[in-house]
């Protein structure tokens, strides 16, 4: 009976079952995510712009090596280069492409320096918020005993009035931190700390929800049955599975952190006066915006575009990381 398997009919049947074209190599999850992400034009632009801004403020000082703090009273109040288009007599030129302010400081250099601070505050505060949020979310999702207490605590923090409290904390704790870490360092620590401490709650809630669902799955049971410790289960099996909601809330956190920092600077409780940030540049320019509207517009556009690109990036990430939407 065995030699019958090689009859021509049988071979034909097997031929129908095999694939005509060569098999595609297996695709990884992140390749799928990237393909879906690429379909979202806004997200690609957003991500690109965010990368551009971040690299620009990191490497900007080498490309444009004018000191943002140098006063040059003789060359004050230059207009940006584009005013030459309609007004040939305007005080403008390539030596100060974005113009100078009322003390003759170069605005392009100030924008780069301000962007450095704003982006650094944004990234660090977002990182801190993610760290706290993930830790609390994982712990209250994984350990049943902690759940009730931690979630009530999260609810309580969620009902704190954030902006008034931030204002309060910044004005009240400015002095001691400034005396310990210097006026700039102290303020930096304070603002990053406050924004981080007041924006972890959403992440914690989302992570907890996902962990609660994940830990009932079979692979966790399997891991536990071979004697994996809780710490290992969390690090090896749970955290990689909640990475997508964390990434989405990271983008939201970055946007809020940049806006909050700028708002604080705008209200006059942020960094010291000669320390440029985008919000500070905007706030300082408001008094003279009739004559020099570009000084309000440039930092304002920088903040808005950065936040807009971060929001688009978050939208795209949410679509790309959601397996139900992916592949549609």
């Amino acid at each position, binding site marked *: 009976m065995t030699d019958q398997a090689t009859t021509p009919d049988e071979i034909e049947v097997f031929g129908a079952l095999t694939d005509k074209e060569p098999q595609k190599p297996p695709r990884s999850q992140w390749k799928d995510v990237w393909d879906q992400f690429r379909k979202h034009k806004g997200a690609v632009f957003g991500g690109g712009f965010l990368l551009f801004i971040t690299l620009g403020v990191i490497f900007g000082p080498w490309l444009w090596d004018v000191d943002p703090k140098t006063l040059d009273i003789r060359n004050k109040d230059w207009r940006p280069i584009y005013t030459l288009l309609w007004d040939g007599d305007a005080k403008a030129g390539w030596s100060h492409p974005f113009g100078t302010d009322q003390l003759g400081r170069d605005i392009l250099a100030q924008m780069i320096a301000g962007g450095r601070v704003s982006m650094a505050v944004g990234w660090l505060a977002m990182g801190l918020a993610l760290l706290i949020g993930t830790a609390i979310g994982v712990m209250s999702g994984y350990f049943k005993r902690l759940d009730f207490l931690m979630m009530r605590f999260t609810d309580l923090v969620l009902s704190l009035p954030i902006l008034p409290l931030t204002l309060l904390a910044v004005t009240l704790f400015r002095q001691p931190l400034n005396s310990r870490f210097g006026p700039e360092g102290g303020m930096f620590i304070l603002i990053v700390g406050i924004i981080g401490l007041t924006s972890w709650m959403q992440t914690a809630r989302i992570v907890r929800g996902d962990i609660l669902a994940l830990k009932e799955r079979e692979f966790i049971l399997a891991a536990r049955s071979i004697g994996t410790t809780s710490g290992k289960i969390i690090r090896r099996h749970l955290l990689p599975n909640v990475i997508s909601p964390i990434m989405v809330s990271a983008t939201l956190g970055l946007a809020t952190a940049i806006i909050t920092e700028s708002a604080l600077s705008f209200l006059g*409780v942020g960094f010291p006066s000669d320390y440029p940030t985008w919000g500070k540049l905007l706030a300082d320019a408001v008094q003279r915006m009739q004559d020099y509207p570009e000084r309000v517009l440039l930092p304002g556009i920088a903040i808005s575009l950065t936040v807009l690109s971060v929001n688009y990036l978050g939208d795209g990430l949410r679509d790309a990381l959601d397996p139900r939407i992916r592949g549609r």
Partner: protein
Amino acid sequence: MLTFTLRRLILSVPTLLFISLVIFGLLQLAPGDPMAQVPLTVPPEVKQKMREALGLGAPWYVQYYKWLIQFFWIEPKIFIDYLTNTSFLFGWLPDTAFYQGELRVISWQTRSPVMDIVVQRMPQTLWVVGLSYIVGIVIAIPIGIYSAYKHYSVFDQAGTFVTMVGFSIPPFFTGPLLIVIFSVTLGWLPSIYDTTHVVTDWESFKIQFFQMVMPVMVLALQTTAQISRYMRGAMLDNLNQDYVRTARAKGLREGVVVMVHVLRNSMIPVVTVIALGMPAIFGGAIITENVFKVNGIGQLLLTALFANDLPMVMTLTFIFAILIVLFNLIADVLYGLLDPRIRYD
């Protein structure tokens, strides 16, 4: 539902107590000295006496307890007295005299009761904030409905982009931007909100209207962006449901299907978002009030902070906290009321 509401009301008491404790603790830890402005020629023992006169000599729990009594017991008594004696609504009730001259929460700046100042400032904030919220909702809901109905159309793409932009531009940029455009360049609208302006006739109403346009629009932009996104999402969720197909199949007109069947179901999450967004709008009003020089409670909080006026700061921050807790409660109750599938008890 009633038991749920009651339970939530009772639960909000410890929440509020905790929040007040947090705010109080922050203020206690703060190193700011209210006597810092007193001239150096004042001898230290006099300074000590002044400190005690402000109630700073007592330990923190005594101070906290006194503040609690003043805020939760004495101030309501004054409020009830006001209601029954002079107010328009309840003035017909027999006059009460609960308030017997106890010490109220006193501002260190003006030496007058904090609540009196808050009551003076409240109408400006409420007018600007309340109106902007209503305007924002009125604009947002049609946009959300239409862009969900015409999913992926040009209108939808444009609407999504505009709401994303409105979401991303902070009010402290839109404010100055609008001022540059409409009051500096075009000269149509005043850049400063004049709160002493009284509306008596049509002319003065026009002035009031023009000065309110910009602050209201700045705040409304944020509301519109947020709510129309939610509205669109909720409509999209509902438009593909089976009951919509049923409604169409039994021959209902398209307008009825969308505006009655789908809209009513989509409004459930949107209404709660509207309630939850209310406190955030009050927070955002701090910035807008600063830009347009509206002397509402946000601006009051800022000046009190800079002047180290701790009782004022404490009370105002706590009022913001009350708003948040209250609107969270309202959102939860509304959700249960509107959606019969959700029953908390």
